[in-house]
């Protein structure tokens, strides 16, 4: 990856972090409602993953979708506007935090029913194969989602039909407050690939470059026509499951320990050590991002509420 692209990844990661930090504040101020699941701590996963896709590759994920939206190229303005429920948001304020999307950027949402988007992702790959399009569908989901039946049906069918899907599990150790070992029969999600006779790989999800490499390999393997592939990325969310999580299920020491491998810190170190950028240059990016986020908040706050007609619009396409 060239320097420019590497710096762009840094920009994206910091942007995700700051957008969500501001989002958290706005939530506390009551300007954002509903459920909001922060991606803070997991930025390297979608950033490295999506950097490895071709523009025609489709991305679909769960409700923890702000980062994915930004990595797919949705402007912070639209993300922030959707969080505030404004008509300028990705979903005109009708979707909210959990339901951002932009098919034009090949980002297919933002889905809030755990695991339900896996069969849909499988179907997207089936449709593309049927329509003779040679793109790959990248489906992201959490560790907890691998225990629901939807996961099983989707992975089995994807393999039986040898569909071009990359299954990406973000293993952040918990499904809400239930740890992987308390919810899953196998400790490593990648091992579940065995039951579907598909490759199952595991990589460090806190190091964006490692994610990128693992994703590149996986995506190209899938594109080559060898069928579906399961990639597990080890990561951790620094914040609660969603806003207002009492966090009784984990110790602060554990959080502290993981915060030492902050994906932004790791990447920044990588960039400076490899002379891709100076601290000064990265500091500049940081402040540019702050300004970008200020503009996004400004944009969102001043954007109009959706008109009442919007309530009755788009129930049906015809």
């Amino acid at each position, binding site marked *: 990856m060239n320097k420019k692209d590497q710096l762009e990844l840094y920009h994206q990661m910091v942007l995700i972090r700051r957008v969500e930090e501001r989002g958290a504040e706005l939530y506390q101020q009551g300007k954002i409602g509903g459920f909001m699941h922060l991606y803070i701590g997991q930025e390297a996963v979608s950033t490295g993953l999506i950097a490895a896709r071709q523009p025609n590759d489709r991305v679909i994920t769960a409700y923890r979708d702000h980062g994915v939206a930004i990595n797919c190229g949705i402007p912070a303005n639209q993300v922030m506007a959707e969080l505030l429920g404004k008509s300028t948001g990705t979903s005109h304020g009708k979707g909210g935090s959990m339901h951002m999307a932009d098919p034009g950027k090949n980002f297919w949402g933002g889905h809030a029913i755990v695991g339900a988007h896996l069969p849909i992702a499988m179907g997207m790959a089936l*449709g593309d194969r*049927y329509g003779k399009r040679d793109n790959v569908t990248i489906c992201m989901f959490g560790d907890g989602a691998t225990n629901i039946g939807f996961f099983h049906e989707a992975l089995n069918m994807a393999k039986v039909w040898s569909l071009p899907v990359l299954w990406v599990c973000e293993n952040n150790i918990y499904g809400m407050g239930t740890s992987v070992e308390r919810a899953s029969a196998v400790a490593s999600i990648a091992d579940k690939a065995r039951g579907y006779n598909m490759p199952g790989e595991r990589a460090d999800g806190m190091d964006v470059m490692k994610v990128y490499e693992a994703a590149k390999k996986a995506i190209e393997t899938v594109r080559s026509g060898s069928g579906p592939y399961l990639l597990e990325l080890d990561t951790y969310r620094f914040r609660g499951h969603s806003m207002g999580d009492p966090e009784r299920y984990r110790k602060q020491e554990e959080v502290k320990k993981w915060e030492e491998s902050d994906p932004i810190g790791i990447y920044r170190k990588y960039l400076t050590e490899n002379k891709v950028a100076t601290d000064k240059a990265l500091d500049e990016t940081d402040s540019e991002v702050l300004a970008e986020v200020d503009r996004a908040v400004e944009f969102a706050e001043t954007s109009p509420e959706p008109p009442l007609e919007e309530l009755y619009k788009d129930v049906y396409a015809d």
Partner: protein
Amino acid sequence: MAHITMREAISQALWEEMERDPSVFILGEEVGVWGGSYAVTRGFYDHFGGERVRDTPIAEAGIVGAAIGAALVGERPVAELMTINFAFAAMDHIVNEAAKLHYMFAGQFKLPLVIRTVGGGGRQLGATHSQTPDAIFAYFPGLKVVAPGTPADAKGLLKSAIRSNDPVLFIEHATMYQVRGDVPDGEFTVPIGQSKVQRAGQDVTIVTYSKGLEISMKAADQLAQEGIESEVVDLRSLRPLDMGPVLESFKKTNRAVVVEEGWKSYGVGSEIASRIYEEAFDYVDAPVKRVAQDEVPLPYNRTLEQAALPQVEDVLAAVREVL
């Protein structure tokens, strides 16, 4: 115009739409090699091949999810759920995904998909395999629910469903595949969301759909011999629900009976009756009667099962009550 069975009419619609539009394909359990468990897709696999007539594993959520995904990327899948009883295993994908994605993302996603399925009792299949829960699917905005009662409507409505850009649940009835009727050859569509007067009359309005139509028409014939002329209105679509012809008829007859095969409480009859009172209150001369299934899981034993299902006699009795 050919005189064919409901099964032939449905097959014809599928076949013609697949010939017309290459983005249309079928997927479901036993739709291919087997030819469809109700033989609706017999011969399709040999003609269209396995990619367009795709046999699936037994995984209802996977089947509906696959159809949703394929529709999102521009194809026009027609998923078959062997029976509506198995649709419960795909409930989330039908009511939470298919019915909501277009709205929730402000129209960015289109879901041109059809879920063909088969409902109904009367075949001694027992409680889990004999349901007619059409009403609970019609409950969800965002989904279109169609249930034809004649071969012509089956063909015309299925073609419209396949061409629609919205998710359509197309409910066939397990005991009506042999019903015959005149069906226009080739291009012929019936718009979704339009009720239809299947028999004209001025004494009483019988509102019904699907299997209920068969029963109601028989009852109407018998009543005619007694000089009672029933107007039979076939809803054809449960959502969108077209009350126009129902109200028009009711304002003429001032009496109505609603006939459905499903359970009575929280059923189709409840909705129709409520609307009639709301929208034609001044025309009401007698309480609207609901003819429906006894509220028990359907048993295997034939005598008991038939006792629980609505029969022609029940319609006759209801009509006599409202007159």
